[in-house]
């Protein structure tokens, strides 16, 4: 086979033999880290792609994929990160967007391929190891950015992602070591550039392949999926809806539980999508807490009834209470599990001006009225739910498909309004 011979740069025969075994050992280390990166990125990609069926799946959340139980409850950092607006890009162009893990899969596969390829050669030259340093810098930079986002925006880390971060650092350090340990050799500048260009194109092809396959084979989103029922009684006859600040014009109703992690993630996704600016959202509270909600046998989010009371008591300042509740969900649920006095004490400590309102019959009756509004509309017992111009956003599309489906709903409803 003559592949590469006329065009593929070959090692310069004038090179000195690769110095001892040290660069090779570091290449082996590099290959091991690249393989680990391939595994972590593949697991992450697999979990993301599984959700393209619009169903709920348990996901891997272990530093050793395959060991340990999968997260089926959605309580792990891996789930939070997967459902965050940062797990994929171009979400408004295709359902779910393109998962970040997929190009990572390609990059690590390329690095593994390059490392094995170099290991199988008799000689190593610095032009190749220097390219490896440049190539491994990409996952390191991406990992730094994503670790920063995890820490500052998402507020949690996923173990599989940490595996990718460590693998990125490992390949980078190993590439530097391999480069440093490989003896210098004279290279023509044009020769270096052509070799780098060749490797770059090869890398680009390996990264692009899974992306193209993904975009070609992923399920198409049919408009028939948007044919959902609306609200039977959308009017706020009980006066229990809360205004969400924003300058949007499209009337919308969001059904949420202030202590539901999915609602918090939904709000973040909606905000990150930029589409929230077009909505004029009214919020209706649906605490999945048996203290006030007879529709749940067990409290899914203990303390949610008391926090809902606080939101209703706060009135125009409800968004401040909601932000606080979202930021302290775990703590508030733990207090709620200890009993009503514990959660009321925490609320009064944070918002002393609401002390005379929470727990009182009047506000408890308002929470109940909100639940009756939900009964009157025969809504499913789940949160969050979003209705845009009285058309329900399918429950399956409130996570990864939010940007794409909401864009279509907004376009569809604005077309109807024009007609």
């Amino acid at each position: 086979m003559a592949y590469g011979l006329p065009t593929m740069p070959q090692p310069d025969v004038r090179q000195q033999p690769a110095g001892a075994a040290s660069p090779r050992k570091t290449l082996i280390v590099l290959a091991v880290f690249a393989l680990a990166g391939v595994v972590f990125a593949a697991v992450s990609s697999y979990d993301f792609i599984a959700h393209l069926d619009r169903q709920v799946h348990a996901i891997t959340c272990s530093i050793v994929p395959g060991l340990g139980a999968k997260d089926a409850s959605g309580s792990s950092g891996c789930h939070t990160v997967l459902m965050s607006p940062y797990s994929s890009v171009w979400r408004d162009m295709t359902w779910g967007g393109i998962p970040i893990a997929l190009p990572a899969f390609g990059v690590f596969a390329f690095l593994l391929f390059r490392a094995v390829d170099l290991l199988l050669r008799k000689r190593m030259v610095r032009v190749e190891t220097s390219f490896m340093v440049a190539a491994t810098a990409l996952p390191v930079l991406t990992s730094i950015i994503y670790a920063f986002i995890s820490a500052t925006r998402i507020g949690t880390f996923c173990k599989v992602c940490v595996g990718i971060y460590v693998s990125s650092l490992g390949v980078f350090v190993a590439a530097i070591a391999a480069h440093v340990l490989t003896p210098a050799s004279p290279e023509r500048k044009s020769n270096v550039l052509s070799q780098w260009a060749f490797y770059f194109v090869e890398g680009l092809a390996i990264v692009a392949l899974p992306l193209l396959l993904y975009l070609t084979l992923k399920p198409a989103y049919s408009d028939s999926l948007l044919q959902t029922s609306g609200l039977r009684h959308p009017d706020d006859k009980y006066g229990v809806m809360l205004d969400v600040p924003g300058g949007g014009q499209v009337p919308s109703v969001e059904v949420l539980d202030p202590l539901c992690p999915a609602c918090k993630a939904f709000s973040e996704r909606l905000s990150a999508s930029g589409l929230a600016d077009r909505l004029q959202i009214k919020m209706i509270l649906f605490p999945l807490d048996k203290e006030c909600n007879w529709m749940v046998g067990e409290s899914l989010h203990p303390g949610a009834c008391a926090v809902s009371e606080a939101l209703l008591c706060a009135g125009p300042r409800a968004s401040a209470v909601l932000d606080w509740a979202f930021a302290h969900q775990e703590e508030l649920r733990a207090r709620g599990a200890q009993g009503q006095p514990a959660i009321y004490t925490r609320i009064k400590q944070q918002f002393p001006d609401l002390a005379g309102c929470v727990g009182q019959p009047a506000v408890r009756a308002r929470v109940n009225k909100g639940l009756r509004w939900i009964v009157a509309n025969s809504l499913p017992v789940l949160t969050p739910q979003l209705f845009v111009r009285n058309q329900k956003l399918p429950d399956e599309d409130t996570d990864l498909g939010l940007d794409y489906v909401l864009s279509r709903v907004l376009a569809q409803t604005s077309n109807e309004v024009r007609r």
Partner: protein
Amino acid sequence: MNTGRTHLILLLVTVAAMGVSVASWTRAAASRLAESQGKLPEVATASASDMNYCSGDLKVILKRVLTSCGLTTGGSTRGCQPLQARQVASMSGGDFNALFSPLADRAAIIQFDKDSADLDAASAVLLEQTFSDRRGASYFFVVSRASPEGSTEHNRDLSHRRGTAVLDHIRAKFQDPDIDQEVGLLWLGEEFAQLDQQFCQWKRSRSGDGCGTAELNRSSFIAWIDCRL
């Protein structure tokens, strides 16, 4: 094997492994999506509560009362007088009261002074607590009575005023737009289904005072009914 051939084989293996993986994952998701189309989600729908004590008999009485007393029909008649209540219930006073015995945890007895229809502070608090503890109930019953002192006509009117006082208080306090569809008002005077001594154990607004049948029946019995019709 020369370098170029090795390189090519490695490249093909890499590309094939990635391609097969991504293609199989993606097509599997597409296949599951296609299978799930048209299937209804397994999620409960929000509904009012329908507790175990909602026996067939209770539901029949409930429906008769709600219909005859102008609640479910949205008519202008509000409440049932003693004669109507007896006809509607089609049962003895004892049997009528027995229907409410499963409601011991949900009911309260709002007590009044003799020959008075004014709510005192303790009555207002108990009334508000009971009404706000609605949960998933659909109907609120106010069954007012009077002790036997005075004429039958007077006691009929007195129990009516007691029931109205309760209704007016919750109407003012809770501003519930559905109140006319959810509160069933019966005033029984001294004539029908008088409370006996066993109701002294129930939650009362004057639990610290002595409890005889006279004190018990100077009252409005209130309870949320967790039944769906």
